């Protein structure tokens, strides 16, 4: 009985994982609200660019910030 429940649970979990992108991922065409200025981490463009520059030097990495729009997913 326990094994059956476990198997069914696993099946549901895998099925949900398979659907995850469709279910929970915000699609690019749905990002209008994310692209608004108020979604930025900082209201100052110059400051955001400066902080990103420092961060990329310090961490030897780039990206993931909100220097360019709030997060509309635009390239």
């Amino acid at each position, binding site marked *: 009985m326990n094994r059956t429940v476990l198997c069914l649970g*696993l*099946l549901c979990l895998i099925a949900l994982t*398979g659907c995850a992108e469709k279910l929970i991922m915000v699609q690019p*065409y*749905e990002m209008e609200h994310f692209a608004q200025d108020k979604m930025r981490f900082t209201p100052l463009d110059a400051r955001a660019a400066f902080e990103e520059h420092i961060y990329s030097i310090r961490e030897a990495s780039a990206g993931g910030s909100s220097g360019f729009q709030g997060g509309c*997913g*635009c*390239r």
Partner: protein
Amino acid sequence: MGMGSASPRSRVHLSLVMFILVVLTCTVRTVAFAGMPVAGQPAPDFVLPGLLDAQTLSLKDLKGNVVLLNIWASWCTSCKDEMEDLLAVQEQYGPRGFSLVAVNIDNAPSSAVDFMKRFENRSKKKPGFILLYDRDKKVPKDYFQRGMPTSYLIDREGILRKTYPGSFSKSTLDTLKTAIEEALK
């Protein structure tokens, strides 16, 4: 209880369950992306009103033309940045049977209309391409759009030739022009 102490029957059961899980995972993913248009297959049709007027247009109406379907929004900076390049492409290939169809997907069309008016004033000419408005975002859904903006090259027969996710850069614009030239042959 480790695997070492499991009976052969349990192992068969476990293998069967694992097999079912793998099949199910693949099936669910396949179902989720079923209908996604791929190159070489007919591009999904649409009927949309104009952004600046109420005149509707469908993809079928453009059969016989090479179409570049561009999905854009006024909140997408890179979409607006590439508009000038796309206008130049339309001017270059328009007389040879090329149509640029720019589908706007803003929640409200007013900001897109404002942008197009500013664009007209800046470039001092009317945009020579077709502007449509998709309030329900049916086109990006049907085309399984993966980025903003995305452009789709559709040949004279209505077959999807290529997909261009993201805005055009200098090099990808050259690639697009080569593809348009081939499609126009």
